[in-house]
């Protein structure tokens, strides 16, 4: 049973046990436009909540992807190197960035639910 939460920086994090899959939301990919490069961290890297975890670049701009939760990077989506546009096509599925072994589940619990994130998006427009 997995649960998905969202950040104000437009990352999503899906939790299965203590394994968090992180990517950017559909809103984020549509704002960025065509993704042309994804820079992923090394496996084993320790990340802290709100710290830089990856980089995503569109034709127009480079943006940081922040770690929604603290922990250790245990997997990265190497497919994105050859096919960065997957982030546009399937951000919540095949377009995931990295997996983090979560240190403190309370960090996850405090993030926005999907409904809360949708409400948050409305405040931006």
């Amino acid at each position: 049973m997995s649960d998905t939460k969202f950040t104000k920086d437009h990352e999503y994090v899906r939790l299965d046990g203590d394994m968090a899959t992180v990517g950017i939301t559909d809103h984020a990919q549509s704002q960025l436009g065509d993704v042309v490069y994804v820079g992923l961290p090394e496996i084993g890297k320790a990340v802290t909540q709100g710290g830089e975890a990856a980089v995503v670049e569109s034709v127009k701009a480079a943006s940081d992807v922040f770690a929604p939760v603290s922990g250790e990077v245990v997997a990265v989506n190497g497919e994105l190197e050859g096919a960065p546009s997957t982030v546009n096509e399937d951000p919540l599925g095949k377009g995931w960035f990295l997996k983090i072994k979560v240190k403190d589940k309370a960090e996850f619990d405090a993030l926005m639910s999907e409904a809360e994130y949708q409400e948050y998006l409305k405040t931006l427009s």
Partner: protein
Amino acid sequence: MAETTAESSAEQPATEAPGAAAEPALKTTPLHGAHVALGARMVPFAGYEMPVQYPTGVLAEHLHTRASAGLFDVSHMGQAFLMGGDHATTAKALETLVPADILNLAPGRQRYTQLLNEEGGILDDLMVTRSVEEAEDGVLMLIVNAACKDQDFAHIAARLPQGVRLMRADHRALVALQGPKAAEVLARHCEGVNEMPFMSARQTSFDGLACHVSRSGYTGEDGYEISIKSAHAVAIWSALLRDGAVKPIGLGARDSLRLEAGLCLYGHDIDTTTSPVEAALTWSVQKRRREEGGFPGAERVKRELAEGPSRKRVGILPDGKAPAREGTEIQAKDGRKIGTVTSGGFGPSLGGPLAMGYVEASFAALGTELDLLVRGKQLPAKVAAMPFVANRYFRPPAGSAS
């Protein structure tokens, strides 16, 4: 355009132009309503609210322009006429401000040049066209950058001799049609334009509406810029878009297209500190002007031509896939800073990252290995020839046109 596009981020809402609140009086072009109706994402650029992209996105717009024909609204650019009693009078007046040979510009021909300051730095770059009409002998059409137009026109007007005057053409719109299908598309509306050579211009009519067409552009492709009364802008924009080969293209793709073509963006790749020699624009300073001088900063230009400049604008290809953006530090292989990236990103037609920037002259040779400092990491790169994507300008066989 990089000011708006490079700084836009995922946090910014689509429907509102970032920074618009701080710029209460954004100007609009006569095609503003057409862009909004097409679903364009509008952003502030050079004091105007302009389309950065349409719903298809920058990548598709870029590739469409290279494959077919792209239509650009560039009405924000500054258009003006410089008028004197005859060509020699007007040309000599302009030659006191720019390093190009304007005197020997033939009727109906166009030339790229720069307004220089006394130190030989570039105040702006511009296109100068000599009217082909005999009745308009002594008229030069100038097209300058949007962000510089007020300063440029004030600068020029303040330095004209008696008998030469500058008339702004703010009542005119400007659209560009660029790409391999531009000629066949435009020829359906403007007879004979497919025969015009690159960098020539003429008065003609578009479906009966008077316009001024030049065969030039900012993409590296064959194409045209069409100057027309603002009142007729929507009519020609709509007529061109009805053609299946044509799609509207925003400022985002305009930037990636010009970068692949190795063309400078004012305020980024050239500015008041860079000379035409440093900027690798010496091809635009013709022999007579190099010898005679008589333009602002001529001493610096002559000296740099003779001795070589201390730094030079070069093309740069990163070895890997990560783009290096404007402002990226360029290092020699020993870690010493030798320059800065002035434009950089991803080239959709190239299929990879590309950049241009200034390096110390001893590092400017093609193939020189460099490092780009991206997010604290040294990414290997090489000095590369520009354009990154081959130009496809239309130059008829010798003898058929001047």
